């Protein structure tokens, strides 16, 4: 199955996987050294005082357990980040797939770029960008945190009804969540996080870094999705993440508020733009095809 993973994904994931494996090997080594030391101790003292040996072993464990635990948590967090990278890569694919079909329709009309359909990369009120952003945010729902007061305050946006209601309808489409309403509420909370433009950021880039909003026929379109991945593992999140308020002296380097930590995950996907506008300029009936959901 893995042969169909694209090159850029492998390149972005490989260091994390190597780190995980290295940490795991290091933990293994640590444990075997400990075991060896104790066995040697046992060989040297065939009949030691039972209480004395127990004490020595307990001290060893107390010293090494936090280190091993930290290693395990780090491995856990890195693995979760790798997993999130796969999902964000799929989100980038969705954004690119959405972009190639959304961009061509009438972006370039007879008299150049039509204003009403300009891609407006920099602005959020463009209907085309809204559609592309929605495509990217939807897969990110799966790796979004369940709603919490800290995160909500951090992202500074209340739950929007137009996000919550359709998400509940959507949830009933899935076999796993068909009977229970609990999942639907969870999904709604996650959707609220993922659909926030601050958490899922999409850039659409043409060939040669072109972001002007006008894309040519059969041009390569690159979608870059940056997702603020909420880190859940207790110790490792401080190691990898930054606070939603930023990390500075005033908030105790991110430890004083309850917002938690996040790591930005960026993935890219490139697809070919889907051709020209459907009507030649003289015959254009002038309808707008793009529908904004919500």
């Amino acid at each position, binding site marked *: *199955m*893995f042969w169909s993973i694209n090159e850029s994904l492998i390149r972005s994931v490989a260091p994390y996987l190597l780190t*995980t494996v290295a940490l795991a090997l290091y*933990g293994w080594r640590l*444990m075997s050294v*400990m*075991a060896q030391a104790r066995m040697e101790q*046992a060989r040297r003292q065939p009949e030691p005082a039972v209480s004395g*040996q127990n004490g020595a072993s307990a001290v060893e*464990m107390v010293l090494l357990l936090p280190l*091993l635990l930290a290693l*395990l948590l780090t*491995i856990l967090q890195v*693995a979760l980040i790798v*997993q999130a990278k*796969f*999902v964000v*890569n*799929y989100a980038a*694919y*969705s954004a690119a*797939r*959405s972009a190639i*079909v*959304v961009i*061509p*329709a009438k972006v370039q009309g007879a008299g150049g770029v039509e204003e009403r359909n300009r891609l407006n990369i920099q602005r959020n009120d463009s209907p085309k960008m809204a*559609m592309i952003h*929605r*495509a990217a945010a*939807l*897969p990110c*729902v*799966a790796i979004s945190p369940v709603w919490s007061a800290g995160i909500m305050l951090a992202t500074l946006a209340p739950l929007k009804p*137009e996000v919550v*209601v*359709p998400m509940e*309808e*959507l949830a*009933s*489409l*899935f076999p*796993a*969540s*068909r009977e229970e309403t609990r*999942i639907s509420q969870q*999904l709604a909370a*996650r959707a609220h996080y993922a659909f926030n433009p601050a958490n899922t950021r999409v850039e659409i880039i043409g060939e040669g870094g072109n972001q002007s909003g006008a894309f040519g026929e059969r041009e390569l379109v690159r979608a870059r999705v940056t997702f603020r991945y909420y880190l859940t593992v207790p110790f490792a999140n401080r190691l990898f993440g930054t606070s939603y308020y930023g990390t500075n002296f005033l908030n105790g380097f991110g430890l004083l508020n309850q917002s938690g930590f996040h790591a930005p995950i960026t993935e890219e996907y490139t697809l070919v733009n*889907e*051709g*020209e506008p*459907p*009507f*030649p300029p003289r*015959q254009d009936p002038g*309808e707008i*095809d793009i*529908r904004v*959901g*919500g």
Partner: protein
Amino acid sequence: MSINSLHRDQGGRISIFFVFGAIAFIFLIALIYNTAHQSIRKIQMQGAADAAALAGGTQAGRNLNDIANNNNTMSEILTVMIVIRSVLQTVEIMKTELYAAAAVATGLIVTSEAGAILYGLARALESVARVLRPIDTALSDLSRGVGWKAMKLLDNLNVGIKTDFPYWAEKETGDFALRNGADRGPHGLLIPRASPALDLLPSLPLARGREDELVDRAEDTYLKYVQPLPASLSAVVAVALPANPIAIFLGMVTYNTSNLRGSIITNAISRFLNLVATEPLAWPNEPPRPMLLTDQPSLDPSATMETKESRADLSQVRKHLQYLAIASGKMARGSKIGGEKFLNVAPHQSLAYAEADVYNPTRWSMFEQNWRVKLAPSVVLNEKFNQLTGIMGINGGSQSANGLSFANNH
């Protein structure tokens, strides 16, 4: 080994710790594998849907191009028929004129050499007409002309293409979805935005249009090269000859085309011309008709329409050429490991959709052989959601399409 030594053995604590670590590690690898597997599977399913949509749309585009080709061939055959008939008529008129001139010359001018030359010319033209007439008859005789038969054949071919299109489109869609990773149920379905048949079968927005449009097309393409001639050449020729054959030829072309169009030239002229030359070209009883775009296609593939193609509302025509393809597959295996939390909530876990638009960048006309297909944002899904869920056997038959536009990715 004594109980005491068992009690003393402390290796167990480390190995329990190690076992827990190993289990966690395996769990993590399984989780990553699972996520990767699912997202790859979803990309694969999207690829299947794209391939299916493009396959169905390509079928439509090819058929439209075939029909446009047939229409063009019909108008070309008609051009040849008009030209040959006009040449024959010109020769006949010239011959009559020359006989008359010869008679006048021999009567008035005593030296009858000029009359003899004119007479000889007239006889030569008569033999030319004798060669041309059987060719013209074989080509455009009303009951057994080869030209009419060929055009009728192309007409029937068009009707056949339109009749067979739904079958081939659905077959191609299913095949390509299957080849690209769909593996459940009907694999792939092609659903039109608008269709006269059941609202779910793809169809082409075509009907047999007015036969006049073949004449229009002939004038637009080939006959336009003979029509601008008189202004420059006829003056020169008119001086050199008593009657201008090129002017007569051009007049005959207009005579034939306007007769085909049904516009009546004044009776007197018509009656006079019919005395000296063969009758103008006319349609047979069931004239061949080109297959043209219409915004209200009928279920009957050989149905005719009386409005001109250029009057079809293109935004309505376009709705018939927007196709939604759906590829259905089994869910990715091993999705149990991560649990529901990592269920990828993009819509339709086992269902992918794509819309293909068939369009013509040159001109939306059935004489323009440049129909193409491309992927487009799917407006069809919003409009047909309830029907689709019913077909695919997923629940949500009572859901509103507004709710789904939220989940509509592209």
